[in-house]
């Protein structure tokens, strides 16, 4: 695009940011850099502290320890670890706990938690152990049954899986790893460019800013 070659605007190339450093400093330096006052800093990356699935889990703001453990296994089944972290390593269960405690209507949060408990009870009756302790194949079978409102979850509210899925998708792709490792996070694109292909982006989607 013509504009990105402008001499005075040479600091406006996209800057993928994976950093805890001062975003304010970054924006200010780029804002001034645009005006030809200073050169933008090169931003150093910082590795993410990924956690292994499993291991101890703490109770949340509204969810109990056992509910958190179940939720951690559920979100990991929906978005598992591949060559990038899965939903449990990005604390998507913690995100859901925060949303239920702070951002959802209390009625809605309570209905979700009741459905979660019911899921735990039915899954245990069917597969003989807590969902979190099942092998991946059984976990997938259980979630497939839930997604289709099939046996043994036909009595669970139909909205439960959609709510769980929505919270998992939003939580994962708004996390640092979900947004910037699994997808491409571009906080300062440097301008709009129309001549840009999926291949130019490594076959990946940009992460949304809002959900």
């Amino acid at each position, binding site marked *: 695009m013509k504009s990105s070659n402008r001499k005075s605007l040479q600091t406006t190339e996209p800057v993928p940011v994976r950093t805890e450093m001062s975003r304010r400093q970054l924006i200010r330096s780029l804002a001034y850099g645009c005006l030809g006052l200073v050169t933008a800093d090169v931003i150093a990356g910082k590795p993410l502290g990924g956690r292994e699935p499993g291991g101890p889990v703490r109770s949340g703001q509204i969810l109990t320890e056992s509910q958190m453990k179940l939720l951690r296994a559920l979100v990991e089944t929906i978005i598992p670890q591949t060559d990038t972290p899965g939903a449990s390593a990005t604390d998507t269960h913690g995100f859901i706990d925060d949303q239920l405690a702070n951002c959802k209507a209390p009625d809605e949060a309570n209905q979700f938690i009741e459905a979660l408990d019911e899921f735990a009870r039915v899954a245990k009756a069917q597969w003989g152990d807590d969902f979190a302790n099942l092998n991946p194949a059984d976990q997938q079978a259980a979630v497939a049954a839930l997604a289709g409102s099939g046996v043994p979850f036909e009595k669970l509210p139909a909205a439960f899986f959609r709510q769980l899925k929505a919270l998992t998708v939003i939580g994962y792709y*708004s996390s640092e790893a979900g947004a910037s490792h699994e997808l491409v996070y571009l906080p300062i694109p440097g301008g709009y460019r129309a001549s840009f292909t999926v291949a130019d982006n490594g076959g990946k989607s940009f992460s949304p800013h809002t959900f």
Partner: protein
Amino acid sequence: MIDPFLIKKSNKKYDAIVVGSGISGGWAAKELCERGLKVLLVERGPPVRHRMDYTGEGKAPWQLEHRGNVDFRLAEDQYPIQRKCYAFNEATRQFFGNDRDYPYSTAEGTRFDWIRGNSLGGRSLLWHRQSYRWGAIDFEENLRDGNGCDWPIRYDDLADWYSRVEKFAGISGSVENIPELPDSEFLPPFEMNALETHLKGVIEQKYPNLKFIQGRCAHLSEPTQFFIDQGRGKCMARDQCQRGCSFGAYFSTLSSTLPAAIKTGNLEIACNSVVHSVMYDEKSHRATGVNVVDAETLETREYAANIVFLCASTLGTAQIMLNSKSASFPTGIANSSGVLGHYLMDHIYNVNASGTFDGFEDAYYRGTRPTGPVIPRFVNLDGQTEKFARGYFLRIGTERLNVNRGIDTPEFGADFKRKLQRPGPWNIWIGGSGEMIPKYENKVSLHPEKTDKWGIPQLLIDCKHTENDYLMMEEMRLKCVELLEAMGASNISSSINDDPPGLAIHEMGTVRMGRDPETSVLNGQNQCHDVPNLFVADGACMASSSHQNPSLTYMAIAARAANLAADLYQRKEL
């Protein structure tokens, strides 16, 4: 830096007071200051410092406490109306009015969503920045079809003022030579993506009377040295505008007009100052200043001036005027006509349609563009041929569907994750923007009993969509579907929602301009017929609403009114 210019109490008599620091107030203040007048800018909200106070800016989703969502109880208690605004979130909340502190009422059986700014800069920080000149037809149609009163100005009265504000604010767009949608003084347009370029060809070939053009917006697509010298830079396409933009890439009072006004040395700013009413002197028949309640301490104070400009937003201005009662004006200042508060309008944004598009699978884009294509008005241009009066234009958005497309499916697991890693299919959205006819019945008044915490009577809003609006909505919906089919979209859906007026956030009218003092409040110079040194230069002055985004027209009207007022003042005719 604004701090040296912030004042609280003042015994000075200013040349002019400007109430409100949004788009209109910022322009009025700048122009008056540049004409050499000593100006006090009065703002009810707290100061916001460009760059320094954009506290939500640049935060990644994971750096926000609730990933962008506002705490439920907080939203429920303090922002039940504001939360309906698409731009209201954890990173922008501080710029919105607080519904608990600024309550209003609606007449029984009616609804109105009043989205409000509450900070220095007002809604210039929060606006959607789409910037279109109105056409000649917009200033003539009241006369043509008899709805509303004839505008006392025509397009030609504003053309030079449009040019003046556009060159200063920075408007990006393409030259099109469309009579109904005059070209601005443009910075380069934002590019169309591959699909849009294709759709433009399809639509303009199938429909010779339609144009498919890039949207126009107040963003520096490619800033010239003129803008860079003002400390403003190129739009980064971040899509976070309402958090504040340290690049100054979009026009706001804080990035543009306020620094210019400050530079004159003629400006002082009074923040946290809620204007209660305009003071009026019965002997001289002049406004003498404003009564203010301190937003924080509730103390009262007065500011005095020879000229008062009201730019407090459409309904804010109406509320102040209705509450400015005197022996001469028992129903509100300058209301000898009785039309103060009447002819409230908004735009009709209730129609949405969308569909997916197969193809262009490798085409993408980088950044989120601050505008999108539009199809300018094409109905009722040469007289009314539709079932409804007036017109609409269509707004278009195209995007590769993002990960949210995975929410409503039964899929999960590693394959699902891999699928979401790639951009989804193209989606085409079309939304209407229609004109509401000015109606006497759509009105605001002061509530007989209810007040806010500053002791100011609440506004009572009584506004409804009319039969004409519903006819237009249905026609827009059908047209959107027809165009999506013509574009080759599939999975087409369309809807008419029941959002009340207000949510388009283009509320206009209530202090209308007109030629006749018996049926209008303002003359063609935005001057009250009854009170020559009282000017209204925000959305309240509009005698009709057009179908087109109004803010650029507010800028032109405010700049024009300020200069006409300065002419009169310097000739000692006020």
